């Protein structure tokens, strides 16, 4: 694909610990087009954050990429050295972390932190720094008076907005977000999502949005990847996945949300718990919890099968 800004192919990440090797990301491949919004959903421990860290080259030992490539704007960023990486990071892609309180420096004002980021990437002029700082704060709807504020003087929602403003400083092509709304309550969460989507449409950057809450990205993402125990089990257009979920895990996940609309129905959730990543079964990793499991599911990890506009890792779709 020529308009893809990011190609992840055959990516594998392992945590090598004394207690054994945990396979956190296994054979993940996808591409991301310019200006696309990709949601990655899954439960805790499914490898979604590890995947995001691998894409951003932020993994620290004992985690390591053991196979696969991450090609960003034509360059394999897994092969870049630290200084080459520094030039790409933040200028071409930025990261918004889960907890803004921990990601922001508590003893520096917002203005100082913005200035740091810009100076580190070669913007030296004071007037340019000031005007750009005002500009990005205005983009996320925060009064420029807050440039003089310290993080603790801002509400949770504002801090997350400051983080997003900071990611926008150098107009990157891609922003990866790791559960940026999970510390917020529903109302603040919703308004932040609306804002991210508006900014993205206006400025044209691509977004990879990692979350455990599938319902959150339902109306904001273009495509969705559902992860389970280190693998992508279903990937495709968001609306199609919500309307016709095909993988039994996706179906179970969607059936786990109580709704405020329609008649009240009893839900079952998904019984059991995900497998231990250090001791994975030979076959399908969802087999133990799957209501539609067949005998053959235990033999080998199923391939991704193309069904409609989606790809599904399930033997039920082998002959489609």
């Amino acid at each position, binding site marked *: 694909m020529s308009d893809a800004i990011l190609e992840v192919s055959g990516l594998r990440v392992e945590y090598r610990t004394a207690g054994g090797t945990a396979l956190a990301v296994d054979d993940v491949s996808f591409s991301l087009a310019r200006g696309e919004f990709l949601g990655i959903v899954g439960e805790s421990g499914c490898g979604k954050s590890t995947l995001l860290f691998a894409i951003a080259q932020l993994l620290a030992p004992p985690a390591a990429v053991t196979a696969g490539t991450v090609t960003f704007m034509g360059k394999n960023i897994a092969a870049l050295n630290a200084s080459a990486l520094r030039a790409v990071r933040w200028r071409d892609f930025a990261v918004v972390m889960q907890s803004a309180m921990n990601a922001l420096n508590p003893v520096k004002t917002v203005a100082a932190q913005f200035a740091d980021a810009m100076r580190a990437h070669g913007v030296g002029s004071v007037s340019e720094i000031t005007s750009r700082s005002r500009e990005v704060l205005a983009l996320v709807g925060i009064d420029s008076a807050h440039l003089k504020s310290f993080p603790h003087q801002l509400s949770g929602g504002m801090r997350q907005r400051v983080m997003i403003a900071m990611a926008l400083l150098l107009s990157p092509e891609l922003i990866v977000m790791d559960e940026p709304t999970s510390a917020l309550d529903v109302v603040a969460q919703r308004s932040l999502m609306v804002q991210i989507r508006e900014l993205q449409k206006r400025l044209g950057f691509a977004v990879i949005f990692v979350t455990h809450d599938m319902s959150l990205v339902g109306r904001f993402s273009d495509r969705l990847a559902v992860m389970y125990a280190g693998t992508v089990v279903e990937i495709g257009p968001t609306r199609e996945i919500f309307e016709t979920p095909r993988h039994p895990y996706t179906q179970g996940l969607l059936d786990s*949300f109580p709704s405020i609309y329609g008649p009240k129905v009893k839900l079952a959730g998904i019984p059991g718990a995900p497998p231990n990543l250090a001791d994975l079964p030979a076959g399908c990793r969802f087999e133990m919890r799957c209501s539609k499991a067949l005998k053959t599911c235990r033999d080998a990890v199923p391939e991704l099968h193309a069904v409609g506009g989606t790809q599904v890792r399930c033997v039920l779709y082998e002959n489609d």
Partner: protein
Amino acid sequence: MPLAERKSVVCCTKMTEPPLLQIIGLTKHFRVGGVFGRTLHAVDDASLTVNAGEIVAVVGESGSGKSTLARLVAKVFKPTAGEILFEGRSVTAIRSRRDLLAYRGKVPMVFQDPFASLNSVHKIGYSLRRGLQLHRASLSPAEREAAAQAALEAVGLSPAEKNLEKYPHELSGGQRQRAGFAQALSLQPKLVLADEPVSMLDVSIRIGLLNLMARLCAEEKISFLYITHDIASARYVSQRIVVMYAGKIVEMGVTEDVLRRPAHPYTRLLLSAVPDPKAPLGVDAGEMGEPPLVIEPGEGCRFLRRCPIALGVCGRVTPALREVAAGHAAACHVTAG
């Protein structure tokens, strides 16, 4: 509805049976900021009831005072004003350690974070036996063991003998939270204060615990005060719902009535913000604003700054809860005036 029919009522209990828990004008203020400090109004003049065998959900944003309310009922905090009656007797008047232990046995709490609420150096069995020793001191060791096992079986942690010997770190998040429920359940409670018991769990695990709450309520007639920010899960398990905003109860009533015909603009805002895969595409919320800090709030409606339908009176007079339909009350000058 004509004005004459709108009585200023607060509780929606059937009069035949006294409520299990009755909270009347409960208020909790905290002093913040040292000597020249000011007053934070965490809960202001809250009145509600919980009947036997009923799940009542308290929903609101962070900072709405919902957790403080639960902690007041649990006697973690002393109320600034107001009264809590459990089975008709005053909870605030409890003084002796014996009465307090007995009360907390009947009204235990289940906490949000199953990773922090279980002691990690002790086995599950120890935590259960310890609770039984304190709150049901009359049991013999053999009866204690049986009660602990029965509680684990009841929450789906079987085989119980095996799970009693496990440390918290050997259990998954969902199992840990089940152990938390077992701890409460082993005390033969009348009312469980569940403070966001599922919000730290994965989506696929949550429903199992909500079903457990519903089952315990239906079969064992245990009441729950279910504190949550998730209005969809509140609908799933509760018979009645209480909506809190900035320390005040702004709306309460039978869950389905409140959700189908929300009277308070804040309830409407909350409903429009719920991420729901089944939401019709037309539903969309506008500008949401931020919840206020409730430091010395003064007179007037606390939702005023975010309210799309506010009138002049809203800034001057704090609205009281008024009935908008049978068993459904809201505190709004405009919709429940």
